[in-house]
């Protein structure tokens, strides 16, 4: 028991890194994903096409590869290249990657709203931005909550990939302790930590889904 307590300190520090990466990614990738979704359904073919290619690239290659590329590869790009410290590099890769997934979820959500909603808003004099903001997107939120919830829970676990950049997140801290002590207990403790985080998220999304359950479609 004392052994487990001694683990808590360093593992909480690791969890802090994990949570930071999680929150930065969520806060930035959700709005970016929405913007990309709007661009994807725009009638400007060049814009929609470019975003299509972007989404294809981000979803079609491993997140791990993207992480390594931003950290090790970006500095070598002529002129535009920048060297980022570990955390910003990882954050850029996570935000760009998750924004692509969220963009697809939002696009599907927006396109699932019936044409009659747009027509009803238009004959009442609403502009396209007003229709989106007041009529379409509020209904989209309800429809995308389940897939967004899934993606968010996946993100908690995906943050463990940052160990490749030698960042001391929960998983890397755990692994070093296991290697130091030749004991598997830290793995169990880490599992409990991850479960706690995903439990809180699941609970939050359930609450949101309940709130949107006041109306049926």
């Amino acid at each position, binding site marked *: 028991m004392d052994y487990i307590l001694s683990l808590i300190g360093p593992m909480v520090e690791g969890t802090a890194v994990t949570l930071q990466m999680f929150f930065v990614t969520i806060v930035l990738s959700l709005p970016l994903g929405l913007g990309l979704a709007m661009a994807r359904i725009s009638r400007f073919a060049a814009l929609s096409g470019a975003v299509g290619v972007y989404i294809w690239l981000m979803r079609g290659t491993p997140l791990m590869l993207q992480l390594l590329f931003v950290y090790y590869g970006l500095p070598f790009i002529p002129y535009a290249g920048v060297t980022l410290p570990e955390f910003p590099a990882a954050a850029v890769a996570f935000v760009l990657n998750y924004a692509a997934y969220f963009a697809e979820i939002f696009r599907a959500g927006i396109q699932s709203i019936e044409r009659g909603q747009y027509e009803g808003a238009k004959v009442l*004099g609403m502009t396209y931005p*007003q229709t989106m903001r007041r009529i379409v997107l*509020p209904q989209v939120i309800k429809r995308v909550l389940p897939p967004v919830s899934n993606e968010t829970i996946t993100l908690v676990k995906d943050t463990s990939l940052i160990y490749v950049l030698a960042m001391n997140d929960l998983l890397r801290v755990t692994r070093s302790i296991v290697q130091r002590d030749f004991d598997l207990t830290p793995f169990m403790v880490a599992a409990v930590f991850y479960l706690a985080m995903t439990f809180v998220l699941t609970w939050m999304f359930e609450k949101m889904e309940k709130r949107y359950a006041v109306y049926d479609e």
Partner: protein
Amino acid sequence: MQCMTNNDGHMIEMTGIHKSFGALEVLRGVSLTVAKGEVVAIIGPSGSGKSTLLRCLCRLEAIDRGSIAVAGETLAAEVPGGRSRYVADAEARRICRKMGMVFQHFNLFPHLTVLDNLLEAPLTVKGLARADILPEAEALLRKVGLWEKRATYPSRLSGGQKQRVAIARALAMKPDIMLFDEPTSALDPELTGEVLKAMRQLAEEHMTMVVVTHEMAFAREVAHWVIFMDEGEIVEEGAPEEVFARPRMERTKAFLGSML
């Protein structure tokens, strides 16, 4: 200088409207004039272009040729080369606000309560304050008999109730003209009465109305003018007692016979 407003009392003037979907010509030179306070019923077989005509009027479709004026203001006009153009977007939106539209499938906003469905457009489009429009919206709900349902979401309403909310929602923008596209066609027969009653009441208040309908009794009793369309053309039009009692054209006779 072309005069933008004329006062000949015409609320709607559609002239020589042509509209095609790809190779399919749906409207072939339709002209429609509606005077202030007039109720015009448009009847005709399925696919004859009735909905398309209304949809072109409120910009849900764009006409290819012809011109449209609403309350004396040009909404769409032919430009050199023969095709037609609507006026600039903001201007067109302003003109179209004079018209309210009621759809066959209601198109209510499911995420808003009945009352908020009525308030939404006055709030966002006109930028009015909620407190200022609340009394009027509540009065409209009373008028269509749905005040008790103000806090309910649309999914909990019957079809007839939904359509009455849709009518009230359109009226909340204070239009001068109301357009109806088969407002009772999606309803169970026993629910059409309450919707037709609300429409009758509007007609009695001298609202200018264009009603696409399969309700022949309604067209006969309420409309001042009946238009029979077939294959994208107006085949016959006249006062209802003329068109219904003594149709001149064979196609009209055949259609009316099929409606019995």
